[in-house]
Structures are given as C-alpha cells and as structure tokens.
C-alpha cells in the first residue's frame, strides 16, 4: 500500500527561529531579520511540499546479521538503527520533498548576485522538508497509538552509520518518480530538498530517544537538536 501526502507551507509553521537554528548563530542573525521575514512570507508560494510512503507488512528482522528484509530487498542499516527498529512488525518507507522551485529560485538569485537571499531560501527548503517529516511522523504516531501500535522515529540512509547508497534499495520499493522525486546513480535525490528513510511499526514498538549519544557524527542535524 502506498499513500501520498502534502502540506502547505503555512501548516508547517516555519518560524524565523527554525531558520536561525539551521543557520546557527542565534542573536547574531538579528541584523538579517527583515530579509528572513521576507523569505518566510514568499516561501508559501514557492514550496511544493509533498511526499509519500509505502507500508510493508511482511518484513523479517534478522537479529544476528542485523538485516531487514522487506519487499524483496535486504537493508543493512547498521547497529544503531537496527536496535531502534528491531521490535517492528512492519516497515514504512518514505520520501518527502520541498519541491524544485525553491532551489531553482535560490540558484537564480545566486546568479544575480543576491547570495544572501539565495542562501536563506536554500535553508528554508531544508527546514521545510524536515518539518514536513516531523509533522507526518507525529500524525502517524498518534494514528497508530490509537490502535495500540507503536511507531519508531524516522531513519535515513546516510545517517547513524547507514550507507547513503542503500537509497537505491529504498527507491526500488517505490513507484518510479514517486512524488516527483528521483534518485541518481550517485544516490543524490532530485529535487535537492528531499529526504528518504524508514520507520518501523508494531504493537511491540517503543519509541526511543534519538540514538545520538552512541553515534559519533557530531555535526549531524539531529545531534545538534538533541545536544541543545
């Protein structure tokens, strides 16, 4: 079963604070506040936030090899992620994007010499797709909880020691061009502002803390949030 979803930019309530957090710098960015507000205002018309997922009910988790078999693919997400999903009965494979327009605009502005606004749009695209996934994750979690089913956090190839090239397997489980997202041979998604990953679910699943304390990727997006 595959499902698609879309959110409006407004629904995600992206704030200046979200952008500042992604940029770093806190109060030193105060001088750019007008520009940040301007970008946030117009992003509504530029972001095309959509995504989708496939639910795989027949999966096998090999506790010894730490391989997850689903839909004819064998994922090797590594110890950290395997430990988080090991009690799952099913797997949800997702992709989500903020669309191409925001990156195109950013590139165009760079070409015109307005590198600052270009960068702020770029960051907005990144924040947007992450917040969209936060929202989906929350909605699914609540939905499942009402049926006494647990949902893990989301995990993406390229994080927590999971090889980014395993996106090839992930995409093979989704229809071609699903939600307008494609994957290159070098495992780069287009549009650029896209994410891919998995979540596990099942009655025995307990949502755990992010595994950052046992991971050594200190400049990771998620580590920064946890260590705050």
């Amino acid at each position, binding site marked *: 079963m595959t499902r698609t979803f879309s959110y409006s930019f407004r629904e995600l309530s992206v704030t200046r604070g979200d952008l500042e957090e992604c940029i770093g*710098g806190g109060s030193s960015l105060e*001088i750019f506040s007008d520009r940040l507000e301007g970008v946030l205002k117009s992003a509504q018309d530029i972001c095309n936030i959509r995504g989708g997922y496939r639910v795989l009910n027949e999966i096998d988790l090999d506790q010894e090899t730490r391989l997850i078999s689903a839909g004819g693919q064998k994922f090797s997400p590594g110890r950290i992620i395997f430990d988080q999903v090991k009690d799952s009965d099913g797997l949800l494979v997702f992709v989500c994007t903020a669309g191409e327009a925001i990156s195109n605009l950013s590139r165009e502005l760079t070409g015109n010499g307005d*590198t600052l606004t270009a960068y*702020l749009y770029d960051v907005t695209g990144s924040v947007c797709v992450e917040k969209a996934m936060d929202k989906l994750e929350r909605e699914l979690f609540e939905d499942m909880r009402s049926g006494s089913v647990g949902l893990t956090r989301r995990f993406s190839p390229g994080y927590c020691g999971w*090889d980014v090239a395993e996106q090839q397997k992930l995409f093979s489980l989704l229809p071609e061009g699903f939600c307008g997202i494609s994957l290159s041979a070098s495992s*780069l998604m*287009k549009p650029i502002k896209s994410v891919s990953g998995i979540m596990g679910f099942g009655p025995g699943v307990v949502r755990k803390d992010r595994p950052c304390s046992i991971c050594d990727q200190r400049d990771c997006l998620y580590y920064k949030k946890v260590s705050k």
Partner: protein
Amino acid sequence: MEHNEILEKIAYCIEFGKIDRNSPFPPNMKGQDGAGEYTRQALEKGIKARDVLNHGLMQGMDRVGRKFRDNKIFVPQVLMSAKAMNSSMEHLMPYFTSGEIRSRGKFIIGTVMGDLHDIGKNLVSMILKGNGWEVIDLGIDVGSDKFLEALEEHPGSVVGLSALLTTTMANMKETVEKIKGNNRDTCVAIGGAPVTQEFCEKIGADIYSPDPQGLVDHLDQRFSTG
C-alpha cells in the same frame, strides 16, 4: 585620514559586510561609506594598490575566515563580507590587468561528478579570493576531464574538489588519480561534510580541511613566497 586608518576602514567594512554607502547592512553602519568608497578613496590618495589589497582587503577577509572557522559568524555574514570584498576588488581590477598587482596563484574549484551542492564550494571560493587567489569555478557535477581541461588552460593551478555525500565523495578518488596521473606535482585539496583527513591520505590528495580558513592556512604554508 591617515593611510593606515583608511586601510583599516576597508578591512573593517569587509569584516562586517559593509558593501557601499547604499547598502543597508549592517544596520549600525547605515548611510556610511563602505568597502567600495574607501577603496576608491585609498587609491585616489595614492596608496599603492598592493597595499590596499594586502592590508585592506585581505586583512578583512582573513578576519572573516577565522571568525567563520571559530563559529563566531555564520554563512550569512560571510556572504555579506564577500560582497563587500567584491566591491573593493572592482576598484583593484585595473591594477591586476596592468600587472601592478598579481594574484597569489590560480585555484580551480568544482563540485565533483554526480553532486549538485554548491554553497560550501562557493564559500571556499569567496574566502580564497579574499586571500588573494584567482579562482576558476567550474561549477557543480564536474567530471575529471573538465578538471584536466581547466588545468591545461591554467597550468600550475591548485585544484579544489568538493562533495557532500559519501557516494559522490568516492568520485574524488578517480579525479585525483587522473589529475596526479597527468602531473603528479599538481596540488589537490578536498573538502565537504563527509570528507576526512584519512580519506584524503587514502586517495592521495594533498590537503584536507573541514573549513575554508584551514585551506588558506595550508596554502600559505605550501606557497609562501618567504
């Protein structure tokens, strides 16, 4: 204004991203002259273009690179500083053309094949320019052959490769091999989020740095004119 004072003004405007009088950034310098005006004034006063470059422009960008490395400023501030630097550089261009001042060398940069990220690469370009390098930017998704062609056109250049994913980082290996196969003395620098010193050594590249200033420091050591 004393010569030193005006050079410091240029450095200061670049450090804080004050492009010219019309620029609203930073708000506390609104309505004041910026890097462009001060550079013009310095040259009109007879300060040598070389001194404007070394003690004004480069001094300012050096501070920017260090503050960025130390997380005291962030990408938006670097972008404004780079714009201020460009407005100063415009006035210096005729002196580069006449040969009165020369760049420290040529640096060819590109994001490797299969990768479309450019913000990191662009920041490296800006900081190198501000440290006196002439930068030839080949853009994104650049194959080995394009690097070789650029080297043929600009012999003796240093080459910089950027990648943001471990998969595209792997493409650096082939590019480094081809460049070194062509001329083993070509200095190759690599960088980007997944790159490490260990990987740099493994593929036979010469310089790795997690940030642009580190690259500048390496280049200073390697190519110091003493």
